[in-house]
């Protein structure tokens, strides 16, 4: 998400004085700093704050960049008091009360409930007793709440007087007008603070650490101009972020649905052109029926009861010329799995005379069945080589192809296409039907698809030659879909950045443009989409 990076970049420009022009008529920050010091001294004198140990002056090597004229560097302790928090004894119920009934008390976990950079209260309030029982301190409204551990860097304004647990080092500005500036300066240095924080597994910054942190201080008038500008820009960044998220969601939907869409086009005959010279599927269907009759006669397969004729109402879409609607029971030999006797199923390593056994879809991959670790010596139902396997018991609908003879249990059904039809086309068809099968599954404890449902399932039968062309094209397209997915994870240097130049880019903002557009250009590249488009065009 580039919006986040853009926010960083805006803050960076803000604290370096590059966001708005300086005005030499502004009261210099050095004078402002004097005033803050005077205010601090007054508060000490009135006993409202404790006198702190003076900190060393800011050394040359602490300064990370040059400031514009009129600005000065200062330590956080120059501009505000750093206060921590504490937790009343959690075993004492009288210390805690429902939100709204006591003193708001914030933990880092509550920070996600901040509204527009402002936190009002946490999940619990603490009672006056609770407050007095520990060292937590009231932080007045407008102070900057900054978490100092687990994790470091959660930041918000206090929306009202509140206190915190020990996970914060909050800043109470000596002059409240400074608060927005302190907020953004701290936000800008969060990453730096985390990097320098002591601790390896559990990082935490102390009050002294925070007191010593340096921030740039612009003239007050300029602070106000910068803050107004930053606020304006941050709102735009929010819009950008929302648009980016929508784009991301769109990309994800695209990746999910493109393969489905390709399969749908494939089984509807829209993926490759029909060839007038192909043997029509009606002739193929006759041959399949003849072959089936022969197999029955030879006793190789069992005689099945005839399937009902296909009615107009059942037909979900129009088929191209040369195709014909059939039923799965027509065009393939269907074997419902049956589990072998449990004692016959053993771990592969111990067996000499056995056959690989699959109870369900545990060893399904994207397309071809992986090897199971189990074998059986007493197979009940055999799925022949090149059968398409369909998961028929909860969860239903997944499909795979087996490249070898296996025994199937009752979670699976094997469909063997007749007449040398490619099992790939049947595979892709069943894959396109997955959601349909789920909706057709019945049962209360286990949902399952019945043999009848499978046999009666309509199947769009293309000419044999076209099946092969479709399969070749689907394979190719599926590989391209995978590539689209891969684009996301590829590092940006390897992506085509040329198209960024397509946009009119004002020179001085080029950097910003690049940063902001990197995200946009990295998703499915124009080339890949073109490749897919071309594949559709190829046949015309």
């Amino acid at each position, binding site marked *: 998400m580039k919006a986040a990076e853009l926010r960083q970049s805006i803050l960076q420009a803000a604290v370096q004085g590059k*966001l708005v022009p300086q005005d030499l008529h502004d009261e210099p920050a050095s004078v402002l700093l004097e005033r803050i010091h005077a205010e601090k001294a007054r508060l000490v004198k009135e006993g409202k704050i404790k006198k702190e140990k003076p900190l060393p002056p800011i050394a040359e090597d602490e300064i990370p960049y040059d400031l514009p004229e009129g600005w000065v560097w200062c330590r956080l302790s120059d501009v505000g008091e750093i206060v921590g928090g504490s937790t009343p004894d959690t075993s004492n119920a009288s210390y805690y009360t429902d939100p709204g009934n006591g003193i708001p008390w914030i933990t880092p976990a509550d920070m996600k409930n901040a509204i527009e950079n402002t936190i009002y209260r946490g999940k619990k309030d603490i009672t006056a007793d609770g407050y007095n029982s520990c060292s937590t301190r009231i932080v007045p409204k407008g102070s900057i709440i900054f978490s100092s551990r687990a994790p470091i860097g959660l930041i918000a304004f206090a929306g009202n007087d509140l206190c915190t647990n020990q996970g914060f080092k909050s800043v109470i500005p000596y002059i409240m007008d400074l608060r927005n500036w302190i907020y953004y300066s701290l936000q800008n240095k969060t990453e730096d603070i985390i990097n320098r924080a002591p601790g390896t597994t559990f990082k935490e910054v102390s009050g002294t650490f925070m007191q010593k942190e340096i921030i740039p201080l612009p003239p007050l008038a300029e602070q106000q101009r910068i803050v107004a500008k930053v606020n304006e820009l941050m709102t735009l960044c929010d819009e950008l972020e929302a648009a980016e998220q929508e784009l991301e969601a769109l990309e994800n939907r695209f990746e999910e649905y493109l393969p489905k869409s390709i399969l749908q086009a494939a089984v509807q005959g829209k993926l490759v052109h029909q060839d007038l010279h192909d043997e029509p599927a009606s002739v193929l269907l006759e041959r399949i029926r003849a072959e089936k009759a022969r197999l029955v006669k030879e006793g190789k397969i069992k005689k099945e009861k005839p399937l009902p004729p296909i009615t107009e109402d059942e037909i979900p879409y129009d088929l191209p010329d040369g195709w014909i609607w059939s039923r799965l029971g027509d065009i393939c030999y269907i074997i419902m799995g049956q589990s072998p006797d449990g004692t016959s199923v053993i771990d592969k390593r111990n067996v000499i005379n056995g056959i690989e056994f699959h109870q369900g879809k545990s060893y399904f991959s994207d397309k071809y069945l992986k090897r199971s670790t189990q074998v059986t010596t007493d197979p009940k139902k055999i799925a022949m080589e090149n059968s398409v396997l369909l998961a028929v018991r909860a969860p239903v609908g997944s499909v795979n192809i087996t490249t070898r003879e296996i025994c199937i249990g009752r979670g699976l059904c094997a469909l063997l296409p007749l007449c040398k039809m490619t099992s790939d086309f049947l595979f892709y068809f069943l894959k396109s039907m997955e959601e349909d099968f789920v909706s057709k599954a019945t049962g209360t404890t286990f949902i399952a698809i019945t043999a009848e449902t499978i046999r009666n399932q309509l199947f769009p039968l293309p000419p044999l030659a076209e099946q092969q062309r479709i399969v070749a094209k689907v394979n190719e397209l599926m590989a391209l879909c995978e590539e689209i997915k891969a684009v996301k994870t590829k590092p940006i240097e390897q992506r085509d950045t040329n198209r960024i130049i397509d946009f009119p880019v004002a020179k001085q903002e080029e950097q910003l443009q690049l940063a902001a557009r990197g995200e946009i250009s990295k998703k499915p590249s124009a080339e890949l989409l073109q490749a897919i488009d071309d594949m559709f065009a190829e046949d015309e």
Partner: protein
Amino acid sequence: MAVSNTTKALKDIMRIDAGINGDAQYIEQIAWLLFLKAFDFKEKDWELEDDYVPVIPEEYRWRNWAEDDEGITGDALIEHVENMFRALRNLDVSDGDPRKFLVRDVMEGVNNFMKSGTLLRQVINKINADINFEEVKTTHLFNGIYESMLKDLQSAGKAGEFYTPRPVTRFVVDKVNPQLGEIVLDPACGTGGFLTSVIDRFEINTTDEYRTLQKTIKGIEKKPFPFLLCVTNLIAHGIDVPLIRHDNTLRHPVDQYRLEDKVDVIVTNPPFGGAEEKAISQSVPAELRTTETADLFLVHIMALLKDGGRCGMVLPDGFLFGTGVKAAIKKKLLEGNNLHTIVRLPKDVFAPYTNINTNLLFFTKGKPTQGVWFYRLEMPQGYKHFSKTRPMLDEHFAPVHEWWNNRKESEVSQYVPVEDIIAAEYNLDFCGFPHETTEILPPDEFITQYRQEKAILTDRIESILAKIQTALAQEDVQ
């Protein structure tokens, strides 16, 4: 007899021929045969004039080589056809007769693919048996023939361009109501569905009316094949020399249209989805530049209409809710035209070519829009979706016909004042269909839709970035 039987019969003969490899070739073959037959039919008319000199050389006139069932066949026929192509492609046009230009242009763009003269003879005989231009009614049959051929071409085809169902063209034309004498243009005319719907409305009785008709029906088509079909279609509808240009409307800069280019009426269904080279978008002003062809067409249409000119057109849903450039185009549309009505069509009207939701926009150029009436045309009772076998019919437009002249707000209709549209940043997505579960689109359309949505989002991101840059630049550091 059913149209599909003729096309199927022709296809069955041709599939045996070694020279025919795909739908495109089969359709092209039939197209030029039909063209020659139609042209010969027209020549018979023209011969009634005393001084008529035939355009097509005697031996290549349809009546002389094709009409006789027992006529020339086999290799001799193939040789004859080859000679005919040569002769017609080199027709002497020095006398400037537009009819000769037409024949020459058409024949230059097509080929004879069939290798077997015997099969070609069978095809010709089938065409002669089934298509008779002398019976007026059969012109409808003839339309049907190549519309069903076009379906063949499209069902395997690409997104963008598709045949507009006759009920849709008839509805649009009925509402735009062109009068004889008004110049009617379809800048993306395809096979001429809108134009023939216009012609069908006119009652031509006098010679004057006939002459007027000849000069006022215009079309532009980019693709050679629909162009040829459109020419033949108009010839079949009584236009002697159809004023159809084989050209891309989007190629011409919008600011260079002259007075004589402007028209009274535009009825069209421009291609959606954008498959144009980048340079094409340069024809419109920078702030209206986009790759979506339908949007570009709209910009051109606004420029092509005379003041007071009327338009009825089909546009995809994306236009209604689009932002960025689409919003800029809508702003221009509303400011310079009275966009009085948007009819939201039920899904699958264009099935099986596309499932994208579409709309009919009606506007008159000249006065700014005060408000837009939206009407949502619901799927007729008993229909879940339209298909090739159950397409949309004329009577399905009945509810909107009824509403048109007596407009009231209702569940399916809404009047939206222009201020509300402007306040919604030119969103025209009113009175839409309730959201339905995601249907899986065909890949090409899915990619088109994805690109459109992505373009909309990218536009939005672009416009936010532009705002950020403006905010940054306002007080640029000196």
